[in-house]
């Protein structure tokens, strides 16, 4: 069944989009990842203009983060103060990101920048995931002793704040800075940024693991909401019809994934996810490197 997307201005198969939403949702439910970093490239592969894919995916992440955060909220696993501090940087970063996005779009370079960002981040994540699961599968478990609180130069920064829920007393500049960087990526790549935010919270901020995911999701809601509004206002690239189909599939997939997570072998699946990430990355790289059949093509004229 074909449906015409009003903003992307193209016709797509509903079941393909539902299936993609479901598949990526399944993985999110299984691993607790956001899925934006897989969904946006998949949308680009099926021919959705990258600018529309990024903005629409930001809109979908609002939905998946809301449904994700509520479960953590009930268990009081959200550090609101930390979330709001991250958000100060997140709002600034995502606003800057959309501004950059709009300029790059006018220059005709946005598609390239989106793809390059994906190639860089997906290759890093994919390699990390694969090596981790291979190591575990080969049962070479090295004991890594990790101190909860490292002391780097960053801990000497001013503006110290107390975060009770996270049991931390650190400079507010640190979460603001992290929030800013992830905000920029969120705007340009159409991701929530959990895949960077979560490790940064654990390793850089030293937050207890139990509040990390809830707090990350909490701030992602507002950052992606900010991206959605700014993209809608500046570029008119948010396709609500596409977002609705994606999140319908995503909701069902996430439920199934969460249920399956108890029954499936975690490490093999993590390896499989790693393979998928590397595969998507390889395809993006191939498209950037291979000689196109026609060196000339039509760009979108951005009206001023």
């Amino acid at each position: 069944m074909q449906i015409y997307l009003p903003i992307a201005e193209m016709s797509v198969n509903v079941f393909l989009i539902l299936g993609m939403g479901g598949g990526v949702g399944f993985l999110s439910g299984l691993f607790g990842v956001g899925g934006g970093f897989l969904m946006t490239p998949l949308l680009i592969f099926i021919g959705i203009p990258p600018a529309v894919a990024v903005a629409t995916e930001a809109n979908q992440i609002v939905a998946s983060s809301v449904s994700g955060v509520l479960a953590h909220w009930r268990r009081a696993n959200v550090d609101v103060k930390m979330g709001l501090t991250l958000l100060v940087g997140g709002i600034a970063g995502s606003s800057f990101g959309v501004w950059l996005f709009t300029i790059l779009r006018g220059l005709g370079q946005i598609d390239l920048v989106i793809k390059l960002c994906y190639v860089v981040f997906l290759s890093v994540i994919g390699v990390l995931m694969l090596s981790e699961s291979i190591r575990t599968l080969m049962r070479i478990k090295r004991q890594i002793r990790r101190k909860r609180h490292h002391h780097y130069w960053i801990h000497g920064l001013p503006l110290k704040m107390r975060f009770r829920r996270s049991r931390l007393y650190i400079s507010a500049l640190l979460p603001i800075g992290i929030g800013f960087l992830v905000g920029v990526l969120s705007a340009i790549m159409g991701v929530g940024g959990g895949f960077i935010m979560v490790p940064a919270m654990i390793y850089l901020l030293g937050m207890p693991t139990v509040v990390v995911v809830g707090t990350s999701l909490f701030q992602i809601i507002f950052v992606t909401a900010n991206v959605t509004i700014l993209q809608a206002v500046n570029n008119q690239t948010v396709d609500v019809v596409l977002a609705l189909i994606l999140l319908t599939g995503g909701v069902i997939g996430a439920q199934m994934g969460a249920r399956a997570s108890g029954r499936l072998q975690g490490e093999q699946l993590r390896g499989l996810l790693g393979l998928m990430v590397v595969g998507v990355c390889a395809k993006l790289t191939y498209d950037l490197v291979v000689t196109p059949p026609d060196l000339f093509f039509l760009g979108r004229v951005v009206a001023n």
Partner: protein
Amino acid sequence: MIREIVKVRTRHLLAGVVLLAAATPAYAVEELVVDLSSTVVEITAGFVGSELLLFGAIDGEGDVVVIVRGPLRDEIVRRKERIAGIWVNRDELLFTGVPAFYAVASNRPMEEFLPEAVAAKNWIGLENLLLLPHWKQPYAENYDSFRAALIRNKQRQGLYSRQPGNVIFLSGRLFRTKISFPTAVSVGEYGIDVYLVRDGKIVTVDTTLLNVRKVGFEAGVFGFAHRHSLAYGVLAIFIAAVAGWLASVMFRES
């Protein structure tokens, strides 16, 4: 006004176009009569492209050229260049007043009956299409290659086409042609010019207008997104938040 009246009369005539063709030529006051199966193409949620039928009759001998021209707009052509192994957009040329759609159909290859000079003078055919670089740009040295690329890309998208033989004569005087619009068709006012050519000269031209528009839900969403973009963004977030909340509630119960 007079044109309007002529049009209305044309429609009535066409109702009995077969009869007319068989009737004595004395009654056929016009040399060329044209009508469309529909004057509106509607883009709906299920839009997968559209086909229209144009039909008409000529009085006497002649060849027919049908040109469908979409609304004019700016179009940017970019050329990729390899930098550090990666294909990057480099040069670009902005064209202005480019028809979003351009299809030329005729009953036989045009060069067989239409002298090149006449075609050029009347901007008939893809090679005679008026495609000007935007005035803001300095003179573009690679104009020809960019122009060719614009036409080539449009042809690949199914938006520009050359269809010799797509005008089919049913008898000596009745003809029809199929006009196909792909999904990527632009909205706006389309002009359809039908030329009657005899002895290498254009005898008469008939112009019909066609409207391509988005209707219903699709039109509403598109219009809303462009006219009230802030409200659209807020609504998009609201929908997402409610959907996320609903999912959470359903998930909790099960």
